């Protein structure tokens, strides 16, 4: 590695468990190569903490290439950082200045309880998905290609909605900790396609009901979620969910 070397002050949220109150702790990280990723920088800090006999900072991560949705925390007040359309694992240290102070916090939402430090429990999203985020499909012999024709605009819009990785940045950035962008995307990706029609009404009602039961807030239409989404998912998906929900309330028999 041949990058510039920088030093930073990190203020990190430390919390032992879900029951612990938690507090900010300050760490100095020195001589960081600016070609490192942000998570690699935290790996370096954690190695130093382990060497000193302290507990390393807990944070979620998996693929480290922005596609799995595992990582995510708030850096200086922005979910996944102030850079547009990236997850925290895609963030590089060259985006920061030498001597900068960074505040690292977990997603803050009642529905996302902190498990430890920067790691939160996002199983509320799994339960919303389980409530209706699936389709009934023919599982017998292989279906002929192109037997179901889908208009290009619908296919594109469904795909855009389906790029949601469920990281939770929408909830984290919303002032009401609302999950509407996530649920809107999940409802939309199926509502737009022929395969999603079987459970269409039942799906939106079940997913919204689950979302409400999990304790997420309501949408105030400030679109912070869209600005924070690493996949650039549009709030038009929330509007589609609103339409689907209204239609389902009128037409669904179940």
């Amino acid at each position: 590695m041949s990058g510039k070397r920088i030093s930073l002050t990190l203020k990190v949220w430390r919390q032992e468990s879900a029951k612990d109150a938690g507090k900010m702790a300050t760490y100095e990280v020195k001589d960081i190569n600016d070609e490192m990723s942000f998570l690699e920088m935290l790996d370096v800090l954690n190695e130093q903490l382990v060497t000193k006999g302290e507990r390393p900072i807990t944070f979620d991560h998996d693929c480290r290439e922005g596609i799995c949705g595992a990582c995510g925390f708030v850096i200086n007040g922005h979910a996944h950082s102030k850079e547009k359309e990236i997850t925290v694992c895609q963030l590089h240290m060259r985006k920061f200045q030498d001597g900068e102070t960074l505040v690292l916090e977990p997603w803050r939402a009642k529905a996302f309880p902190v498990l430890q430090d920067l790691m939160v429990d996002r199983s509320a999203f799994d339960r919303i998905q389980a409530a209706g985020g699936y389709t009934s499909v023919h599982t017998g012999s292989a279906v002929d290609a192109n037997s179901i024709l889908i208009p290009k605009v619908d296919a594109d819009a469904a795909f855009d909605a389906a790029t949601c990785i469920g990281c939770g940045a929408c909830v984290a950035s919303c002032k009401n900790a609302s999950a509407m962008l996530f649920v809107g995307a999940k409802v939309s990706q199926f509502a737009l396609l022929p395969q999603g029609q079987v459970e269409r009404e039942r799906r939106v009602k079940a997913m919204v009901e689950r979302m409400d039961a999990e304790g997420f807030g309501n949408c105030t239409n400030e679109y912070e979620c869209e600005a924070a989404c690493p996949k650039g998912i549009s709030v038009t998906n929330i509007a589609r969910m609103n339409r689907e929900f209204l239609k389902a309330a009128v037409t669904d028999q179940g």
Partner: protein
Amino acid sequence: MSNGTGKFLSSSLGKKFVMGLTGFLLVAFMIVHLLENLSLYVDVDHGSAFIAWVEKLHLLGPFIWVLEFGLALLFGVHVWMALKLTAENRAARPTPYVMKKTFGESTLASRNMFVTGVLILGGLILHLIHFRFSKGLHAPAPADLFARVREVLANPIWAGFYVVFGILVGIHVSHGFRSAFQSFGANHPRINCCVRRCSVALGVILALGFASFPIMALISWR
């Protein structure tokens, strides 16, 4: 109320829908109210056009009570939904961020909907005491109402109060109007730009419109 309707109204999306719908109807009322008030400019000293308009309203007889009840119901539902939604939103984030920044479309108006809403409600109560209930439960006679308008607005303190009241209404509507479109699911590139501009324009028109009467009063009636 069927079970389905109850479920819709108790859901997060249903509540936002009701919020938007009642807000829309209240905006429609305020536009009519503003148009009515504009009649004050026709005959500033004697208010003949204003009195004529109010006399026409009195011709509605008992039906005016139905309209007043409907209007009170709209306000009541709007306020009730606001309280419920705000309480839920506060509960959804029990631990605040140490540092939080916005970079979406958050505005002064959108961030303070609850604050402006509470202030407008307080202002509305005073407004009703000033004019609607100035003679007790029954609405004052048209000429008495005009005299009361002159008396209240000629007072610089109340004139200032009504200027602020008008501006608060404008700020509240400038976010509420466009927000309601999204709550109804009306989000499309073809209309979004127009909705945003209309929302701001409506807020400015209501603010300037309502604030203009106390200013006129200070100039003409003192």
